[in-house]
């Protein structure tokens, strides 16, 4: 990799140990991926990384680096994991974080966003995908330490999706089924993710959907789920993605290496994968692993639950945070949900049971396992996927069905 004089000096430690560490990580990564150089980044969107058994691991590393006088070199927005380490905002202030908002690692943060063509580092696959696919900014998905390193240096190695030739579509998905809500979009994401499981660099092109047939929240739901099974962090939605205004442009004139048709049966197969023969659930969860509700979903829930009560036999939980929670609190929506008996996040579920589990308990998935809960109903495919292999039976249902199940206590009406 060719380094500028300044970069070489930073690597040699002339700007301090914190920057030297960061630069070393970036150079080793760049060389492994045959990057020719580092490119400046316009912003960083980061997720704090946990590790099993020692939550807050990332915070310790950040504290060390902050002690060395290191600060972020570009505008940064961070979305600490739900309930995880948000209390460590102090270290973020020392590091010069522009904005820290609880957002569960998804792109509902309205403040620090990239624009088309910008190189960025985006933490978490949902944000990476959204920024690549719908904004046309350029990012790879990398581990949280690497992203912090990019943010400290203000640069990132130019490989993968930073290079235009890698951003071209490779596989075609022809959509022949209407996608009626965020749950359908998350099911489509899971379907595509599963088909492309073994190839991080494959760029799916999705054809057959008009911009008039979707909402931004549905694109967010898709962004959360399409990287979930495999590793897709860049898609071209023909007519919507700025780099895929036409099918021709999406493939840069080449032929797709493979074509898949996604019709009603294919979409239904995702719902069949996440189904159960049990008659009642152990928990109904709106949102889940790295998935939080959109304001539309929250309004819909409130509309269906107003004046009603959820079944007392099991918890019904809603994951609402960031700006969506702000709006829900101030418009009385949160009150409506609470009156119906909905818990706002896993901590409230445990409080009610008089339990004190720290660290991972904020996560619906891990909590369920610890509590011995088996049949969980979700409104999104990503959460279903994340727990589907831990001897837990996730069930995928649309929001209106989730509400019906929460009220009646029966999975089949």
């Amino acid at each position, binding site marked *: 990799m060719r380094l500028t004089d300044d970069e070489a000096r930073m690597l040699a430690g002339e700007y301090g140990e914190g920057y030297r560490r960061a630069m070393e*990580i970036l150079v*080793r*990564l760049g*060389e*492994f*991926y*045959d990057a020719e150089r580092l490119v400046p980044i316009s912003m960083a969107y980061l*997720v704090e*990384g*946990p*590790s*099993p*058994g*020692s939550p807050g*691991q990332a915070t310790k590393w950040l504290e060390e680096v902050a002690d060395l006088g290191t600060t972020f070199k570009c505008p940064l927005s961070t979305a600490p994991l739900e309930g995880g380490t948000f209390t460590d905002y102090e270290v973020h202030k020392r590091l010069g974080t522009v904005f820290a908002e609880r957002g569960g690692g998804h792109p509902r943060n309205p403040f620090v966003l990239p624009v088309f063509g910008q190189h960025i580092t985006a*933490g*978490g*696959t949902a944000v990476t995908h959204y920024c690549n696919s719908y904004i046309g900014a350029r990012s*790879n*998905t*990398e*581990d*949280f*330490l*690497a992203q912090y390193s990019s943010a400290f240096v203000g640069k990132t190695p130019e490989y*993968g999706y930073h290079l235009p030739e890698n951003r071209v579509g490779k596989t075609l998905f022809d959509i022949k089924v209407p996608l009626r809500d965020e749950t359908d979009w998350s099911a489509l994401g899971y379907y595509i993710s599963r088909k492309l*499981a*073994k*190839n*991080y*660099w494959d760029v799916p092109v999705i054809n057959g959907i008009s911009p008039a047939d979707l909402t931004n929240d549905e694109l967010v739901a898709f962004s959360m789920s399409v*990287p*979930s*099974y*495999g*590793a897709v962090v860049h898609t071209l939605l023909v007519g919507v993605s700025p780099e895929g205004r036409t099918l021709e442009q999406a493939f840069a004139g080449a032929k797709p290496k493979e074509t898949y048709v996604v019709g009603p049966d294919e979409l239904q197969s995702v719902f069949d994968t996440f189904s159960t023969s049990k008659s009642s659930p152990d928990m109904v969860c709106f949102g889940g692993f*790295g998935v939080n509700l959109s304001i539309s979903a929250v309004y819909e829930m409130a509309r269906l639950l107003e004046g009603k009560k959820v079944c007392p036999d099991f918890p019904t939980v809603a994951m609402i945070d960031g700006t969506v929670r702000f709006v829900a609190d101030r418009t009385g929506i949160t009150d409506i949900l609470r009156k119906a008996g909905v818990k706002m996040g896993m901590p409230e579920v445990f409080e009610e049971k008089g339990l004190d589990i720290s660290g991972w308990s904020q996560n619906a998935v*891990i909590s369920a*396992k610890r509590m011995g809960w088996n049949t969980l109903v979700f409104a999104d495919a990503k959460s279903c*996927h*994340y727990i*589907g*292999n*831990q*001897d837990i039976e996730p069930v995928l249902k649309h929001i209106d069905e989730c509400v019906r199940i929460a009220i009646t206590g029966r999975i089949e009406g």
Partner: protein
Amino acid sequence: MKTIILKGHKGIGGTAEGEALVSQNALSYIFDVGGIWEEPMSAKVTNKIEMPDWYGQDLAGKVLVFPTGRGGIFSSAMLMGLAKKGLGPKAMINTKTHPVFAYASIVLDLPTVDGLDPNPLEVIETGDWVKVDAENGIVEVTKKGD
């Protein structure tokens, strides 16, 4: 004794050797290694559906040979958590390494190589003894039963 040499570009980390575990499926440390949630923690694979050829296997101390990583950023955090407890692999050999795994390898100094010729997934079998020299991009395989 039959030894096969595979060559590629410079990888991550130094040298390591150990028994190979080979899979044709993409690995995720968060989806597939349910041993992380056990007490005491282990590196056991619990995902029968998505990682069938490694179901029940313990990944600790092995040379893992698999096409690439899948899933999101949590794989690296989980891998690092396991490595801290001495439950990490000895080395990793991929057809193409996923960036999330590459970062874990850098931080852990875990010998990792990809882009080898011949294709390691066609040449290496579970149980073979494998020596990885990541600095020089060379892998030496001694077939089991030799």
